[in-house]
């Protein structure tokens, strides 16, 4: 299955970004074979609505889970409406986050855990 991790860089060893909407990169990872694709965040400098754009962006790419630090209320609404669950990562690299997710060790997010940055 395909998941996305908010990241500071464009490879599996990059640190996980604690922010979802304005992270530098999204790393899309196939959990079956750890193949990945990194895409720079098109919404990183959006004046407003970055979380919404980011959520739409990852949903359109067919991810089945979002692994990140903090998700604002707007982005959370989009993910929830699209039926894509978010999981909380507190640190480490993209590869570690995906391994933890596969091992069922990441806590699911029940609601937005950030007020959204503007």
């Amino acid at each position, binding site marked *: 299955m395909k998941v996305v991790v908010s990241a500071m860089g464009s490879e599996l060893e990059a640190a996980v970004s604690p922010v979802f909407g304005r992270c530098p990169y999204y790393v899309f990872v196939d959990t079956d074979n750890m193949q990945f694709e990194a895409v720079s965040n098109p919404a990183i400098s*959006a004046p*407003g*609505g970055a979380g*919404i*754009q980011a*959520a*739409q962006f990852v*949903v359109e790419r067919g991810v089945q889970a979002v692994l990140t630090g903090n998700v604002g209320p*707007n982005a959370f*609404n*989009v993910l929830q*409406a*699209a039926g894509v669950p978010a999981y909380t990562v507190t640190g480490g690299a993209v590869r570690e986050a995906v391994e933890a997710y596969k091992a069922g060790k990441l806590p699911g997010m029940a609601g937005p855990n950030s007020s959204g940055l503007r």
Partner: protein
Amino acid sequence: MIIAVASGKGGTGKTTVAVSLALSLAADAQETADLLFLDCDVEEPNAHLLLKPAIRRRQEVAIPMPVVDEARCTHCGHCAKVCQYHALVVLPSKVLIFAELCHGCGGCTLECPEKAIGEMPHVIGVIEEGAVGPIHFAHGILNVGEPMPGPLIRQLKRRIPSRGAYPERSEWGSAGLTIIDAPPGTACPVVETVRGADFCLLVTEPTPFGLHDLRLAVEVCRQLAVPAGVVVNRDGIGDRGVDDFCATEGLPILLRIPLDRRIAEAYAEGVPLVTVRQKYRQRFTDLYRRILALRRAQTPPE
């Protein structure tokens, strides 16, 4: 003629200057042909406290919010691409609308290929209109919690008589004068207010704080191609920074108002400057004449 009174920094005396200019010109019968005062500081309008107009009309201002008919919507996603503010998100079986990001432009409704988007008015504030003596007055009041002052300011500015209505304008005569009290700052509401003005009076104080924000306000005027001049309020305090900046930038200092305890006391009581210091009426009338002269000098003959 549209004169905007702006500042960058808050509390420099925009409203004092705007109100004094209006009252001084209103007292001069020749200048009163059509004098409109607009308080565009819709987040905290306060010129009425000094002008004390009789309010005769209240009108709610609404922006159109999209409402999606899910029965007709094919979830093609076109509306989300049209929206510059990302107020709509289209998912495979649902459209999400983020009201706080919607600017009410109506683009999504116009562009929907299925005609599946209707509009519901969303009230963002009110406009109150009235008069004080020969001065027509209007101000906008943005509802608390509304993030978008722009549409309210645009509605307010529709009170300005159209340029075609005053053929004398080509002579830069006095008929059809609008004085606009702008919000502080340099962002969207200020741009919306100053855009389209014939002249911008920048009120500042001769301190590092006044200078810092004056620089930003001057940049706003330049980007909007609105000629500007400076009023130095509380003159005599602070340093020479503002004077030096104006000299370097070729910005005319059109009026200086010294720090005067009586003016401050009057302000604290809600009494206009020109009421307690009558000699300023002539100074504000002269200020207006200098603006007219500057405009004439900058307008190439046809």
